[in-house]
């Protein structure tokens, strides 16, 4: 049984069919690269996985558990979607960092805000512990303990965020605002931010398309580092060399269907379909 199973994903925008039944599987620790010309539905596929778009049909199974079903997708509650979202992290093409926070705060923000999710249980636990206290005092103690816990939680997040930023090689840029960072550095902060919530699968939506070749290198280095750390990743990219080197599985998409899939040697070495051959010839000519 595969770690991630995607079956029959279909998506229509109005009358245009963008995805016409996508199936693929991914093992834990593997890297999947999706290549294909613009408009073939690569980005839409990633957005469907991240619940930014709702697919019309199809299922997504993670670790044997169905986390998305096109038939019931409309009736699923927001809270559940938010919970399922944490399985995936997404790095955007256009970074989308929060400009009002510095690099460290960008990474810390989501974990800090997620404290609220556990607040109810904690409140209950504290209330049980202090059941004997009189009315006013109980609330006061509860409030104080919660505040202390939140402080500890934020401190822990800070340490984690610092470690993540070190991992992407930005230990000296922690207190800089996104406008003071270069494109490559911004994208690396974005990668650290996506890692901060501890996703099981990390998705990259053309992470290097907005960068010049020099900056592309540093971002790709970070992604390679993640591969060595056994992360499961889905990468949409136009960097053929990089796709060849880093991936375990390559998928070639055209017009909303998977034209060809296989190991990089198969796909790049002996392309079977006419479309893939034309695509690879074009990208080599550049």
């Amino acid at each position, binding site marked *: 049984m595969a770690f991630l199973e995607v079956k029959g994903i279909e998506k229509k925008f109005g009358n245009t069919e963008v995805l016409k039944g996508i199936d693929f599987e991914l093992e834990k620790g593997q890297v999947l690269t999706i290549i294909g010309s613009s408009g073939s539905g690569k980005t839409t596929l990633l957005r469907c996985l991240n619940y930014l778009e709702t697919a019309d049909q199809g299922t997504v199974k993670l670790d044997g558990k169905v986390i998305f079903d096109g038939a019931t997708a409309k009736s699923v509650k927001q809270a559940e979607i938010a919970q399922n979202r944490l399985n995936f992290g997404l790095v955007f093409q256009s970074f989308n960092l929060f400009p009002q926070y510095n690099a460290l705060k960008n990474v810390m*923000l989501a974990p800090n805000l997620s404290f609220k999710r556990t607040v109810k249980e904690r409140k209950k636990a504290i209330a049980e512990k202090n059941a004997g206290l009189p009315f006013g005092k109980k609330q006061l103690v509860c409030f104080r303990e919660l505040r202390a816990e939140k402080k500890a939680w934020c401190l822990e997040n800070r340490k984690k965020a610092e470690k993540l930023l070190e991992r992407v090689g930005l230990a000296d840029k922690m207190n800089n605002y996104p406008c003071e960072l270069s494109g490559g550095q911004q994208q690396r902060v974005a990668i650290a931010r996506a890692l901060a*919530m501890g996703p099981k699968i990390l998705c990259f939506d053309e992470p290097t398309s907005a960068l010049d070749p020099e900056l592309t290198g540093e971002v790709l280095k970070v992604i390679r580092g993640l591969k060595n750390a056994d992360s499961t990743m889905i990468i949409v990219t136009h960097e053929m060399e990089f796709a060849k080197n880093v991936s375990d599985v390559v998928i070639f998409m055209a017009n909303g269907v998977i034209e060809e899939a296989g190991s990089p040697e198969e796909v790049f070495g002996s392309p079977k379909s006419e479309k893939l051959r034309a695509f690879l010839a074009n990208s080599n000519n550049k």
Partner: protein
Amino acid sequence: MLQIIIIFYGPGLVSDFVWPTFETANETFNKLFSARFIAALVAFVINYACYFSEIFRGGIESIPKGQYEAGQVLGIPKGKIFLHIVLPQVIKRILAPMSNEVITLVKDTSLARIIAVSEILFVAFNVMSLTALIWPLFYTGAFYLIFVGLLTILFNLLEKKLSYYKV
């Protein structure tokens, strides 16, 4: 100006509504917060609520969709996305049009004299006609100048404070 006239005289023309007054023992208080004053207040509130809400709408819509999406994929709930991600950026963007509008509001208060609210310009005119001196009017102008100048300085400071990042 027209709005103030309509709001003060209009309800009385179509029904027997009369703008309420506070009847307290304090004479100056009664004079200050007269029915006319309340009508002018209502007129300004309605008028400026429209302008300000339009500014806020423009500010919120100017935030790129990517910011919401970035928050969503991190699993942040919608209310918090707005509060922690969108709103700080909105405030920075709308500060300049807001300062314009606030300064216009200060100057527009002089319109209230059309329904004989005793605001500063109205009083100045009264004193001027009583004493046959031009100075009260001159001082009123100076007052407006200083008030608006102070507001300008204040908003400039705020803007400087928020310019620690660029979008």
